[in-house]
């Protein structure tokens, strides 16, 4: 079975968010980039399923410029077999979805996995767009994924519960915990990753449909108002009379 795992390259969780002086772009200066934490669930689960099947391949796909390659190598070190990088900045969800759909179609992948959303843009859009472009089912967000032959059984989170869904390959799933315990690379993986194939392809498809006009930071908090523990009941009065939330 051929697994395609889509990863994004995102600022590390602890990054202090700042923008270029015109507020049109994220300021990458001095920022450490990581594999999107949600995508780690997709990657590890694909590797686990491949191992359980005793065959098949896991291909990792990233839409990004050359500076994303360290994290693509990291994904290879975690256990993917080969990688494809579409050589373009990820302009918007639709643009990225077209690149993924194109690679998926050419490679005839059976299972296309990605994280629920990226922690930078928080779009939660790409899964459905890829599914629709390819005319195949999407399951989002998936908390559990098991395969039996060509049939996948998934748990999809819905507000207030979950649905048990069965789909046949090919399909798209956007993954979240508790699907698996994401793996970290070991020394052997890091060594072998250096020589695994990483193919670079040029983007195709239509123009993006959205553009960021401006980024802004949220207004600063006023600072915390502390209430002495022995007077805890006072907090409830403040929440009612001052903050007006209860």
């Amino acid at each position: 079975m051929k697994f395609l795992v889509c990863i994004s390259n995102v600022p590390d969780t602890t990054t202090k968010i700042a923008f270029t002086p015109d507020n049109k772009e994220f300021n990458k200066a001095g920022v450490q980039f990581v594999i999107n934490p949600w995508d780690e669930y997709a990657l590890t689960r694909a590797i686990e399923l491949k191992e359980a099947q005793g065959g098949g391949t896991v291909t990792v796909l990233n839409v990004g410029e050359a500076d994303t390659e360290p994290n693509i190598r990291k994904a290879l070190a975690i256990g993917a077999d080969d990688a494809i990088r579409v050589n373009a900045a990820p302009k918007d969800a639709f643009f990225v979805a077209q690149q993924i759909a194109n690679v998926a179609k050419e490679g005839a992948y059976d299972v296309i996995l990605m994280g629920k959303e990226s922690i930078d843009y928080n779009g939660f859009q790409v899964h459905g767009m890829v599914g629709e472009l390819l005319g195949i089912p999407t399951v989002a967000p998936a908390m559990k994924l098991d395969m039996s032959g060509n049939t996948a059984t998934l748990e999809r989170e819905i507000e207030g519960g979950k649905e048990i869904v069965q789909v046949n390959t090919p399909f798209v799933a956007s993954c979240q915990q508790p699907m698996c315990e994401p793996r970290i690379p070991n020394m052997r993986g890091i060594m072998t990753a250096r020589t695994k194939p990483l193919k670079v392809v040029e983007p195709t498809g239509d123009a993006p449909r959205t553009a960021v006009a401006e980024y802004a930071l949220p207004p600063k908090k006023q600072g915390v108002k502390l209430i002495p523990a022995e007077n805890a009941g006072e907090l409830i009065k403040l929440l009612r009379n001052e903050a007006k939330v209860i």
Partner: protein
Amino acid sequence: MSVLVVVECDGGEVKKSSLEVASYGSQVAQMLGTTATAVAVGEATEANLAKLGEQGISKVLYDAEPRLKDFVNGAYTKLIAAAAQKEDSKIIVLANSNIGASVGSRLSVRLQASLATNVVELPKTDGGSFVVKRGAFSGKAFADVKLEGERKIIAVKKNSIEALHEAGKTAQVESFSAQLTDADFADAPKQVVMQDQAGGILLPEADKVVSGGRGMKGPENWNLIEDLAKAIGAATACSKPVSDVDWRPHHEHVGQTGITVSPNLYIACGISGAIQHLAGVNSSKVIVVINKDPEAPFFKAADYGIVGDVFDVLPKLTQAVKELS
């Protein structure tokens, strides 16, 4: 053309987030000099759908096909696309929920529409452009996004828009069939498992949340969290370490890789405030932190704080709420 609003219903009722979506849609319609039509999904009653008039909706389309009671991605997408075609809608508004994101993303490709999710404000339409403000960087920033093209889909973040309540206004409920076939239900769920909700309040829909971390010392102490939650009508939640060790179920985990909430009130009990946790709660309107460690980073993100032992403070708070009412 009217603005099309997707309202999600459950157990006959329109979800709170969909009342917000309906209010958003009707205000956009007003800006554009048109009307707002809703298409309802899930289990609804005609009386509750008619009440969407209070949110400014003029007409509600409802397909009574029983298999639409549960979320089916293929069927919902086709139903909404058909409703958009019938109403000649250029703008579709839905909730930024799991259903809204699943359907909205597919629809954007099918209808060749631009899509913005996680939207927190009404659009700005100066000079012919259409710009919406959305949350980005896990609550650490906002982005003004320009939506191109003739058709646009907007997924509205929960608890960002005040629901309208114009008492006495009713919407006309019209039965509607999207001519769904068995093939549209191919990805129907085999089974739907609903959670046992403490106090009956769904975490993603809640406007108040009481949340516990490792400082609660064990699942046996959660009655303190539940008592306060019940007293103020809040949902309960927890931090990632708590769900990782199974003190609480995963669906209560708020944080970067869990649920993102933006309630009016978030009370954090014994949670230090790791950056991953803040990513899930930092758009809450009022944050209260109770922690015995005055250096806990969460205090920096809080509006109100109590430096003290949760086992001492929580019962006092619950008692104080009871004395108010």
